[in-house]
């Protein structure tokens, strides 16, 4: 919202600089986003004197004008205006000057118009953004000094404060100059002058009937008929003020309603009375009701809009004439021939207005204010002020009684506003510094709160009518604190019992695993939690397994991921042009029924990607001191998603204490191709919560062996499909006192025959109480070999 500092001075007469106003408001009331001199371009437009006017040699409608700007040589400008005359003082925009326009800013350049070079432009009122007149150039007073800036001549030395709307969402009263002036008065400790507009005396020669059909949505409605309206533009000063705060001047009536809105924060509306259907006996009737099914209304912006039964409308006898609090209808709008009008000032239910604005997709200056809690007292002040201005500036005369429809509860609330009982000690407790009662009372009174000073530390506080946002004692404390200045609060460390704290074990697992993976050479990536239909297709996932965003940003970001792999594969694809080798991991959530945390890793572009990735995962388990078991997952046991992504022969699952803590597999070739990946990909995931549950480190080590070990190396040839897990089980069954068992080489090649593999194994035997006997080792070796022979047809390799 924009605030004109010049306008503000009318209520807050002080010479505080705009920058200081902005600083103090930001620290004490509302964030000021920017401080900008008004109509900055007018500081660059110069006053010139027309020295001569001659016809353009090649265009009937154009003139070549010589303009004196105070320099030695006059400037030649091509001008099409019919009112250009010798001796005039005019506004000249020289090349390089930027002017505003409805389509955006544009910069003047020297250009050739039908063979004559024009070194700038003589501007009309509209071109300068000063008004609507585009019939001819703007004629300045003969007293205007040649070469001076237009800003100086027009006295437009105003500065605009742009207030961040979000910072005043809860403060309906601050959406106005008077509201901001009140804040300034308190923050600078200076008096303000806000005159209460005089009450309106009704007349009797015409009648206005107001029927409020939905009192909850419209607790107060003020209306009056006015006639003798003389249409035309509003006075210059009013237009300047409106332009300054970003509102386009339209005509005197509309400008007055807008002006009062910017002054008091209360939106108003004026209807052309002749365009409203008359009810019985010539009386005008206004109905405030919910829209009826099928009703339509073309709004001021020329758009035909459908209503909805939840929307509140203002209607005449038959049709809606406005969306209450949002925008008026085109048909009943004030136009250049309007002579009588109905003025409306209403106090609506904020939620109703917000909902209809939302449904209409229309956010107007009016709806933005009505969405907040406003003051029903200000409704009347603004109404009075508008009547006074319409009388004074548009010749209007009150033609009917003032109709005031106010609900009983609201009347009661206005007569007896709610008050709060407070204890001054609470201020100190919550703010953390001591505060005298007299200081509290004086600040609250400056804020126009009514304060009854009770005994000792008690206070009874009644917020003023324009502060409906203050309802709790916390709200009152805030008021006092912000006036004192939050920046003056001395930091004090929080005291309390120190108790041992820790990260959640999930967080701990993530931290530790990440450390291992980064140490091993993996790079951590983050990716979105959503994917689209194309990813579902590439992954072979079912739509029905997914939660879906009902209001997704795009088709690619529609489904909540149920598996970590797809987005990681996408990352591999993204990077593969530049990085042939990629080891990635991600900590993230999947949402399959319940939300679960995963740490997923992929490896691409290396030899033996599966075993390497497995090595990294084993390292993670060892680091966490978790002992695990492996289970080979058969195709029928694999989840549907895993079966679709991975090579079903390669899925391995890791278990600890009856929980699955991780899983790994090779990507299926088809999946790889669908994702456009150049080489084999291994995938692994850890189930963070399960790991957190089984993570109970034993912190135990084995002692250093006292007696020497016996080392044994065996190399056996087995059929290639025999799994190490099975071989290992056989060895462990026979090997007592086995300290170490290591598969140190796997070899497949013609030397050992088709369909075979050679396994080379280190065995280390050690007995805690005696030297392990070499003979005993030989016996064990023999048993192992015999057993392997029987089980797998293994052959000892010499």
């Amino acid at each position, binding site marked *: 919202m924009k605030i004109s500092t010049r306008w503000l001075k009318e209520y807050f007469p002080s010479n505080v600089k705009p920058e200081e106003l902005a600083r103090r408001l930001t*620290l004490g009331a*509302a964030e000021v986003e920017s401080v900008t001199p008004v109509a900055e371009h007018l500081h660059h437009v110069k006053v010139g004197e027309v020295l001569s006017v001659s016809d353009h040699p090649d265009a009937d409608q154009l003139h070549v004008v010589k303009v004196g700007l105070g320099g030695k040589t006059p400037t030649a400008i091509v001008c099409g205006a019919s009112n250009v005359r010798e001796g005039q003082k005019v506004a000249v925009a020289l090349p390089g000057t930027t002017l505003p326009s409805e389509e955006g800013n544009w910069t003047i350049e020297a250009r050739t118009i039908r063979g004559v070079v024009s070194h700038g432009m003589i501007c009309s009122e509209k071109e300068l953004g000063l008004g609507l007149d585009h019939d001819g150039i703007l004629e300045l007073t003969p007293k205007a000094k040649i070469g001076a800036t237009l800003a100086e001549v027009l006295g437009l030395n105003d500065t605009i404060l742009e207030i961040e709307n979000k910072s005043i969402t*809860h403060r309906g009263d601050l959406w106005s100059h008077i509201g901001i002036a009140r804040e300034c008065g308190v923050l600078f400790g200076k008096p303000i002058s806000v005159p209460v507009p005089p009450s309106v005396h009704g007349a009797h020669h015409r009648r206005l009937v107001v029927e409020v059909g939905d009192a909850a949505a419209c607790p107060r409605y003020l209306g009056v008929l006015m006639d003798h309206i003389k249409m035309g533009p509003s006075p210059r000063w009013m237009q300047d003020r409106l332009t300054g705060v970003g509102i386009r001047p339209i005509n005197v009536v509309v400008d007055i309603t807008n002006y009062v809105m910017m002054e008091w924060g209360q939106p108003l509306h004026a209807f052309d009375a002749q365009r409203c259907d008359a009810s019985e006996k010539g009386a005008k009737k206004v109905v405030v009701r919910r829209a009826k099914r099928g009703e339509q209304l073309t709004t001021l912006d020329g758009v035909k809009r459908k209503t909805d039964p939840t929307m509140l409308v203002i209607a005449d006898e038959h049709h809606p004439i406005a969306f209450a609090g949002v925008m008026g209808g085109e048909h009943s709008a004030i136009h250049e021939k309007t002579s009588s009008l109905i003025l409306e000032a209403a106090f609506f239910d904020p*939620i109703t207005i917000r909902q209809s604005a939302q449904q209409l997709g229309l956010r107007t200056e009016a709806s933005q204010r009505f969405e907040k809690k406003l003051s029903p007292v200000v409704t009347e002040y603004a109404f009075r002020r508008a009547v006074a201005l319409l009388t004074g500036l548009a010749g209007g005369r009150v033609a009917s009684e003032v109709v005031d429809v106010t609900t009983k509860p609201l009347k009661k609330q206005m007569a007896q506003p709610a008050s709060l009982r407070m204890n001054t000690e609470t201020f100190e407790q919550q703010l953390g510094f001591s505060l005298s009662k007299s200081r509290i009372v004086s600040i609250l009174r400056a804020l126009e709160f009514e304060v009854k000073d009770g005994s000792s530390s008690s206070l009874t506080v009644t917020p003023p009518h324009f502060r409906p946002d203050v309802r709790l004692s916390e709200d009152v404390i805030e008021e006092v604190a912000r006036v004192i200045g939050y920046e003056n609060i001395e930091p004090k460390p929080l005291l309390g019992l120190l108790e041992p704290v820790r990260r959640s074990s999930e967080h701990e697992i993530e931290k530790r695993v990440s450390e291992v993976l980064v140490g091993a050479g993996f790079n951590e990536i983050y990716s979105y939690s959503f994917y689209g239909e194309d990813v579902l297709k590439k992954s072979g996932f079912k739509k029905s397994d997914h939660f879906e965003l009902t209001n997704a940003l795009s088709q690619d970001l529609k489904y909540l991921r149920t598996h970590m792999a797809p987005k990681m594969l996408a990352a591999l694809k993204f990077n593969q042009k530049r990085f042939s080798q990629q080891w990635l991991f991600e900590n993230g959530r999947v949402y399959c029924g319940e939300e679960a945390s995963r740490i997923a890793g992929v490896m691409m572009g290396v030899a033996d990607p599966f075993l390497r990735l497995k090595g990294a995962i084993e390292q993670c388990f060892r680091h966490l001191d978790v002992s695990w078991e492996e289970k080979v997952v058969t195709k029928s046991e694999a989840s549907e998603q895993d079966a679709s992504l991975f090579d079903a022969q390669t899925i391995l699952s890791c278990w600890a204490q009856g929980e699955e803590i991780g899983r790994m597999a090779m990507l299926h070739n088809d999946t790889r191709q669908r994702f456009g990946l150049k080489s084999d990909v291994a995938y692994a995931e850890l189930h963070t919560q399960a790991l957190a549950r089984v993570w109970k480190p034993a912190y135990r080590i084995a002692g250093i062996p006292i007696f020497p070990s016996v080392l044994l190396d065996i190399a056996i040839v087995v059929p290639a499909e025999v799994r190490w897990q099975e071989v290992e089980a056989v060895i462990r069954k026979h090997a007592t006192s086995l300290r170490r068992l290591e598969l140190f080489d796997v070899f497949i090649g013609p030397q050992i025959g088709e369909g075979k593999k050679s396994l080379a194994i280190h065995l280390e035997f050690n007995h805690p109480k005696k030297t392990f006997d070499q003979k005993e080792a030989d016996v064990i070796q023999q048993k192992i070999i015999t057993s392997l022979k029987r089980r797998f047809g293994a052959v000892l390799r010499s």
Partner: protein
Amino acid sequence: MKKTIQSFVEDIKKKIKDLNDPATIEKLEVEILGRKGAFHHLLKQIKSLPEKERPAIGKFANEAKGALTDLFQQAVSGSVQPLSTSAQPLLDVTQPGIPLAPARGHHHPLSIVKQELAEIFLSMNYQVVEGPELDTEWEVFEALNIPPTHPARDIQDTFFVNREKEVRGKSSYRWVMRTHTSNMQVRVMEKMKPPLRSIAIGRCFRNEATDASHEHTFYQLEGFAVDEHVSVANLVATLKTMLESFFRRKVNVRLRPGYFPFVEPGFELDCSCLLCGGKGCSVCKHSGWIEMLGCGLIHPNVYEAVGYPKGKYTGFAFGMGIERLAILRYGIKDIRLFESGDLRFLNQFE
């Protein structure tokens, strides 16, 4: 005679100074101090002196010889050793180090920031908790004093999920992707009683189009402390300590009014500009301050929603964007890089 010896010694000293090859120095030593050397020759003159003077001069000459011998020794040991005498003849210590194999990978910048923040808060006795990203309107809005009609509930800001509504008593709540980590205030307080000091760091979502400074997926740190006498002054101290620990320097902080439905009073916290230190620069838009986070004292309606007795506790809460800290620290120009998976970006964080 004394003078002659002295000037002889000075001469030699000068000569030695100019030499740095040990062989040449040793050769000169023989020429001077050798049995047929120049010094010996000089000493012969002592015999021709009167007998009375001889012992003194003799002593002086001996001392001079000793000094010269020391000088030669020092010169030899101090001169540059030829390479060939080193045990590491081919080691060029200025060559780049050999990278570890495999080279260490890279943590994501947001993980680095998240971990550091967790450490800071652990050191201040805050527990670090985790919670769901997909949560219901109760935890994300309702219990936080954000009623259905509040602007923050606008469909434009929140992603809704087609999951069956969660029923609680008579009300049922839709599922949403959390728009802030403040749902953790509700979740922790519903389970635990004060005194409480907790932080939650996690992923949040907002339904807004992305560009260089906007993301629909982002991270927040939520922190809160609830006890019987927690004040605004405590809040300021906590946040100042946090920022100073994170940026590893002194900073100034200031509160100004801010509006968040779940706190009252609510504040925006500004931190003195990290680039210019408060003098004014383009980063702080010449104000000397940068907006850091939103905070305030927890609203009484929140205590009511989680079932705490009325008026018993006070507490503060704050919510801070993690990306913002990373952007400020590393000078990242485009927020979308965080979720891009682009290794050219990620490889830069050690």
